[in-house]
């Protein structure tokens, strides 16, 4: 319920329309309500007195009022859509902005899949519910109240009948809603489960095909599908059972009117025309009540979606900017880690990094080596504040990075992440991603340095070649080179290459290194590598083991001092690894 109210704030900019819509509906309803009365007049006065003129005039009046009512109804539609589409678009935008503001930590926690569903499915559900509310919820209560009043006015003697019937209907509705709501929530959960299977199959299609697991996946899906179907059937049958109950109520009510009305007519206290009109109004009242109850159920369904949306809107980003954060920076590029401890869930015991201290001077190249999961990526992620340290601090030119706004910081840091993600669009746009105002010459220069220029020119459309979803039409090595070019183009003060040449062959990598050496003179580089060949000429090599720095030095000094390093070199470069020893 609270979530619904929270989301209702998105209706505020449209409150003029939101108020107008029901009023317009009122107009249509009012017109509808006059009809039985006019019919009554025709029957009781026109026909009974043989007054043709009256009949004709009333008939024309009915026509006129109907036209006005139609206008009212159509305008209500326009007004209602303004609200629903407007608020819906706003809500989607707010959600998207929120997602953009979340940090890596949030994303790990929430999962990108569920976030996508929130943005799409859940927003649509909420929209539908709002729509129902503005159109039909406006209509039905008015109609109900209006016809009830008219009914009582028409035949006061029969007032008790509609009241009793309404009471019965309300009880039925409440019972049904109480049973149906949890069933619908469960249905939504099963729907989510099904969607997850589908999404995984889409993303892992290569895997499924490679292992020829289509049948297995079909079974998995089939199971989830079956469960969903069963749940949906149960939920809907429960809510649908309401209708026959109400039908009986209504119809028995009519019989009641005829009987009691007939008695009154026999006594001479009522006229036939009154009965007819009363029946009409009663039917309208009760049917409107039925519509209202259907709305209540719709609402309950949308409530679940509202909760999920609110959950996202209420999440706090793990990494936030201080209000007085620096927004201007011209760093020379001195990166220092001062006794840094870091763990993904914030407490020291599960720490991924422990007591890390080192300095990278401007223009230096620092290489990080280590076993899988030793913490290399985590270390470099702390520099652009993808995550914040648990203890200690990371400084850039002596300034604690937490004192700088994330955007400013990242503008001066170029990153090629472990998984090179490209977006659909031209190659040129992808390279320019970090700095869209770069000139074409700069783009080409960056591509050349990353050894990407040649293969780009190999495409018929060169830099204007359009990449598909996630850059699927490139090989792994090509993607990585584009990612490097992208990072270079930013002209960063700090360059981070996270295992970014793993898919590139040795020779090409060598050329990239050469080109980068030129570029990297102007910036501090942190390179995570698996190949020793990458780090041979680094100014400083850090060997990480289980979250700590196990050894530090240059290639030469480490060969002498570190057995771990020697072992790594031997396995990669073959025996007699050091030129000196030959």
């Amino acid at each position, binding site marked *: 319920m609270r979530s619904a109210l929270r989301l209702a704030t998105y209706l505020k900019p449209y409150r003029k329309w939101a108020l107008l819509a029901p009023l317009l509906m009122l107009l249509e309803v009012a017109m509808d309500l006059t009809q039985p009365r006019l019919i009554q007049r025709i029957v009781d006065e026109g026909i009974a007195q043989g007054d043709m003129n009256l009949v004709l005039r009333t008939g024309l009046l009915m*026509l006129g009022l109907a036209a006005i009512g139609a*206008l009212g109804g159509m305008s209500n539609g326009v007004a209602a859509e303004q609200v629903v589409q407007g608020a819906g678009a706003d809500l989607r*935008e707010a959600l998207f902005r929120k997602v953009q503001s979340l940090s890596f930590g949030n994303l790990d926690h929430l999962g990108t899949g569920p976030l996508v569903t929130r943005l799409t499915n859940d927003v649509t559900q909420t929209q539908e519910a709002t729509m129902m509310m503005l159109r039909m919820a406006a209509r039905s209560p008015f109609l109900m109240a209006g016809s009830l009043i008219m009914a009582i006015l028409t035949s006061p003697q029969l007032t008790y009948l509609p009241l009793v019937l309404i009471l019965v209907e309300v009880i039925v509705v409440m019972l049904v809603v109480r049973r149906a709501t949890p069933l619908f929530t469960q249905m939504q959960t099963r729907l989510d489960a099904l969607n997850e299977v589908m999404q995984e199959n889409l993303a892992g299609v290569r895997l499924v095909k490679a292992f020829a697991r289509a049948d297995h996946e079909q079974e998995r899906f089939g199971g989830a*599908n079956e469960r969903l179907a069963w749940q949906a059937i149960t939920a809907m049958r429960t809510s649908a059972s309401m209708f026959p109950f109400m039908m009986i109520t209504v119809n028995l009510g009519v019989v009641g009117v005829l009987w009691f009305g007939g008695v009154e007519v026999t006594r001479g206290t009522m006229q036939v025309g009154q009965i007819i009109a009363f029946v009409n109004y009663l039917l309208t009242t009760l049917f409107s009540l039925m519509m209202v109850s259907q709305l209540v159920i719709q609402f309950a369904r949308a409530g679940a979606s509202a909760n999920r949306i609110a959950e996202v809107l209420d999440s706090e980003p793990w990494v936030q900017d201080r209000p007085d954060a620096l927004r201007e920076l011209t760093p020379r590029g001195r990166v220092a880690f001062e006794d840094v401890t870091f763990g993904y869930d914030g407490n020291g015991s599960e720490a991924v990094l422990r007591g890390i201290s080192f300095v990278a001077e401007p223009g230096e190249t620092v290489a990080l080596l280590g076993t899988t999961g030793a913490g290399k990526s985590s270390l470099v992620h702390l520099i652009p504040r993808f995550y914040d340290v648990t203890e200690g601090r990371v400084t850039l030119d002596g300034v604690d990075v937490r004192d700088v706004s994330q955007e400013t910081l990242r503008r001066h840091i170029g990153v090629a992440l472990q998984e090179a993600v490209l977006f659909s669009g031209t190659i040129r746009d992808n390279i320019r991603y970090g700095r869209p105002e770069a000139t074409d010459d700069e783009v080409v220069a960056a591509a050349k340095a990353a050894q990407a220029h040649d293969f780009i020119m190999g495409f018929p459309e060169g830099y204007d070649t359009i990449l598909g979803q*996630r850059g699927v039409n490139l090989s792994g090595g090509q993607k990585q080179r584009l990612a490097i070019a992208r990072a270079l183009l930013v002209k960063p003060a700090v360059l981070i290459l996270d295992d970014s040449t*793993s898919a590139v062959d040795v020779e090409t990598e060598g050329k990239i290194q050469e080109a980068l050496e030129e570029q990297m003179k102007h910036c501090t580089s942190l390179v995570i590598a698996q190949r020793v060949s990458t780090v041979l000429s680094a100014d400083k090599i850090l060997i990480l083991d289980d979250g700590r720095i196990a050894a530090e030095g240059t290639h030469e000094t480490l060969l002498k001092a570190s057995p771990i390093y020697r072992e790594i070199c031997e396995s990669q470069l073959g025996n007699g690894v050091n030129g000196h020893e030959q």
Partner: protein
Amino acid sequence: MSNSRQGTSSAAARPPARPAMGPRPGGRPMGMMRHGEKSKDARGTLLRLWRYMRRQRWPLVGVAVFVVISTVASLLGPYLMGIAIDRYITNHDLPGLARLAWLMIACHLVAAASAWLQTYIMIGVAQRAVRDIRSDLFARMQSLPLRFFDQRSHGDLMSRLTNDVDNVSMILGNGVSQLLSSVLSIIVVIAMMLALNVRLALVSLVVAPLMFLVTRYIARYVRPRFRQTQETLGELNGIIEETVTGQHTVKAFAREEVTIGQFCEVNARLKSVAMRARVLAGFMGPLMNMVNHIGLAIVVGTGGLLAVQGLATVGAIASFISYYNRLGRPLSQIANLYSGLQSALAGAERVFELMDEEPEVDAPDARPMEHTNGDVTLDRVCFGYEEGVPVLNEVSLHADAGQMIALVGPTGAGKTTIANLLTRFYDVDSGAIRLDGTDVRAVRKDDLRRKLGLVLQDNFLFADTVMENIRYGRLEATDEEVMAAAAMANADHFIRRLPKGYQTVLSERGSNLSQGQRQLLAIARVILSDPDILILDEATSNVDTRTEKHLQEALMRLMAGRTSFVIAHRLSTIRDADQVLVINGGEIIERGTHKSLLAQRGFYYHLYASQFRGQALPEAV
């Protein structure tokens, strides 16, 4: 040196996508735009939807029966009411009225019971139909070739699988039975009106043509707009999916604002398109209502005239009016359904579009495959992902059973493509690939793929436990066998250090592990599947050097007796290969062993030497 020789032949290792509309994330889905024209076939779509429901023949019959009973029974109401007024109330005949009242009550009970039964059955029918549609859709997706997935926006596909199917589900549930009973009501009402008073009935039907006109007019404009809405929604989904899953990169380059801008553009477009469609569709209700009232006015007016002239009784007119009102309700129900129906149709069209895509099928005479020795031959294979852009050019190679073949060369040269062809993710343009002498195209794809073990560059893991992920390699494997495979892949020790060991649930795509760890799991998975032929696509390049050493040993054990193709960049991994094939520009330019190639001092030699950049080579050559 090598790059300048590449040219267009090795331009792409994966198929290029057809042009998207504009340089932004989540470009329009390709190829499906053109179907917009032929989708005006609403009748065809409805027919297909109907065929899904028709599968449940007897329940449908039941529904029809109960619809008839309940509609007829409930429509007797006005008729009996007319009698009540004319015969009993006007004549002050209370006992007679009482008898009639009981009859009416009985009638209503029957009506309500049948209405309940009808809905009860219909819901089952509709939801099962939707379940079948989902199932068929999923099955079709599984059988589509890889090419399809490489060229489509995932967001749009998901939108079809979820949003569009949901649309259909919503309307099938309530829509159909309401439609049925509404249509039936109308028919019965008209029949009863004719029975009561032909003149009045005919007069009241005067407005019918007007109603048809209104419906057709609106329909013509509304449906294409709903389709546009769904398409735009699919586009928005594409953006959302791409940027949210690539969120790390967006943040790394501080591109949040720009991404938001792109989103807002499509969002605004969706808003205006949706509004147009729905406002227009929303006109149906009020307009039909008005037409209904016009009819009522005419009826009452005419009825009054006739009554005044003594040609009709008051009771008959009251009945008539009551019937006319009963016409109003089903009509407005149809109008209300209308908007939903249009939306559902648009959704159904997109679903069926997907279902109509060409699946990858085995040749009709494809044979199942028994145990293989593992002789692999490529015979002058030519292939390109796209017309006119060849990637492999007359490539021929042969591997005897049990040999280890190393494929080296610059990226994009065609090595991954060979893997794609061996697994028949794609088929050759000319030439042939033979396994034990049999052309792979003559064999069932699934059988072929099960004999191959593939470790890719990018290894997908499910959001499931580590144990289940490894077990994916061989579903019948026991827990011990899984752990043994993990031990062989050197993954066991790090798995045991995870919070819940083998029962640790991986987050989506296995993102709570490092790349190297994921690779080890993938290798364990392949080990478990015990294939006859191994294809390792740069498998070990993400694993750190220490672990790699152990892994090398394990892989050596695994590769013993199995034909293996290793696509690697690490020269240290291929030193022990039986054959080294150097691939460049889509051709095999050098063949031999590591030593013999070094002696040639050709391309390979230079590749090897470049690893040392200025330092002396370890091997004396």
